[in-house]
């Protein structure tokens, strides 16, 4: 605990930043967005890649998942929106509580779950369509647009939420594949936000991007969380986790080793594996 004090960025006398105030206000009325209880994953029926992960994620929070390559971060993330079910011979055990429903074991509508738990992938993967259609497709498929003006409005709103509107508003009919990598990634965020999810999963969304585009995505993630969405971001980059997240969970060899407020995780790690990871001994 002493260490915390020494390394804490804010001296006790410094004025409390608005960010900490927001965080403090949130701490009072933390609303759980999604919670995993002893979640594990088997690939090929007998090969266990993830063991017994119990984590709680709150609305309005950015949660970072860190850990060395192959430790099961993506595997865990893909449990939360049940994308693992698309992989043949992949089995999820344990339970995941989402709005009071156990989405792993109860009979649920998979497609509704994925509509309200959005996902952004490591490689930007916009559809091979116009920018407009990228956002509009899922909206029309889910019957969420009353008419074409309403659809236009929703597309604009989503692009604004992903901080992309100003860059593309004149080229909505152009192919999304002609955008830069960072813009493509924000487009992927936009099409997910268009469905008004309350959880947004991001699997290393910046690994294919340069530092400036990375910052843009990070800012976007922060803003999205500030609108009350729960953002869960997997990252290899500890600076990134430190910059954007409120809580951080460390995965190692298929287990969730340690979780806590980001500041505490980076300043006072308890588990020695986490200490070794943070000091750069592996990963």
């Amino acid at each position, binding site marked *: 605990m002493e260490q915390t004090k020494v390394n804490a960025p804010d001296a006790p006398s410094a004025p409390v930043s608005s960010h900490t105030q927001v965080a403090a206000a949130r701490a009072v009325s933390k609303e759980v967005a999604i919670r995993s209880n002893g979640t594990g994953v088997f690939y090929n029926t007998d090969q266990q890649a993830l063991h017994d992960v119990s984590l709680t994620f709150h609305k309005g929070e950015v949660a970072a998942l860190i850990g060395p390559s192959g430790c099961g971060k993506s595997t865990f993330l893909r449990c939360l929106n049940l994308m693992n079910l698309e992989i043949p011979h992949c089995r999820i055990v344990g339970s995941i509580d989402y709005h009071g429903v156990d989405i792993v074991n109860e009979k649920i509508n998979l*497609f509704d779950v*994925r509509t309200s738990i959005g996902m952004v992938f490591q490689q930007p*993967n916009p*559809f*091979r369509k116009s920018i407009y*259609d990228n956002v509009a*497709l899922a909206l029309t*498929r889910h019957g969420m647009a009353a008419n074409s003006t309403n659809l236009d409005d929703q597309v604009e709103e989503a692009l604004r939420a992903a901080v992309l509107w100003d860059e593309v508003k004149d080229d909505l009919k152009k*192919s999304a594949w002609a955008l830069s990598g960072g813009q493509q990634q924000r487009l992927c965020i936009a099409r997910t936000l268009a469905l008004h999810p309350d959880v947004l999963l991001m699997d290393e969304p910046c690994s294919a991007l340069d530092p400036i585009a990375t910052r843009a995505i990070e800012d976007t993630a922060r803003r999205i969380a500030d609108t009350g969405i729960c953002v869960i971001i997997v990252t290899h980059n500890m600076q990134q986790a430190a910059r954007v997240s409120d809580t951080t969970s460390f995965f190692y060899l298929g287990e969730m080793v340690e979780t806590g407020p980001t500041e505490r995780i980076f300043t006072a790690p308890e588990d020695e594996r986490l200490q070794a990871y943070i000091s750069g001994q592996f990963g």
Partner: protein
Amino acid sequence: MANTATPQPAPRLIDPDAVVAHVEKARRQSKAATVILTAIAGAICVLLAAILVYIISAGASKAFDPAFLTSPPQQFKEGGGIGPELFNSFYLLVLTLVISIPLSLGAAIFLVEYAPDNWVTRAVKTAIEVLSSLPSIVVGLFGFLLFVLQMSWGFSIISGALALTMFNIPILLRVIQQALEAVPTDQRDAGLALGMTRWETTVHILLPCAMPAIITGVILSAGRVFGEAAALIYTAGQSAPALDFTSFDLTNPACPWNIWRPAETLAVHIWKINSEGVVPDLTAVSDGTAAVLVICILAFNLIARFAGRRLSKKLTAE
């Protein structure tokens, strides 16, 4: 492992002369390869162009003669045309495509997107590969046994179209299957992660991406179907009743749309007059027919390619 036993002399790390010599050798090889490959490609192009020019120029006098293109063939006199054959070729092609495109599209989507990866699926995929290289005469004789004799439909358009379908489906299926498999997995994941069903993802995301490859496949297979003779000789038959385009009585053999009438196509016509023809202007008719066949295939290749490019531009906004 002999060379581990005998110690090698320590190599000099960098020998500038050897590096220069190596680079020069690589450049020479590259240049030689370019020359040889260009020569081979050039020779093939010249050969193909020569064949095309020869076929078209040999038949040009007939092929651009409207009377030849519209009048019925003659049995013994000269001056016969290929009107019914021309129509039959297109009619059979359209019927075949109408049956085989939806079937192979559906089967390909099932195999790629839905079928579990088990031995049944693998066996089916292997069977399709085998079928797609089946000699067409085998398909023709099978069609003769099944459709002409067993079903007693006789030599008819329906027998021919079904034989052509059997011949076409494996080829088309494989092309569509490969086109779908070539769509990056992340497109599929993106659709599913947005809460769309597998079907919506396939129809709205994967098919538009795969469309250019599918169209190319359909064109190529259509060319093969259009020029196919062996599969039709014993199914659609070798006689072409004169057609009466004013008749819409589907039981009348002269009605062009009647699928129960025998229908000789251009390719079968070429085969027939060359093997048992007795008309005096046999060579001219045969050359003219060949030219028409080649021109038709060229034409719808170009048209479909153009249409395909327009369509995929529209679907992908590029």
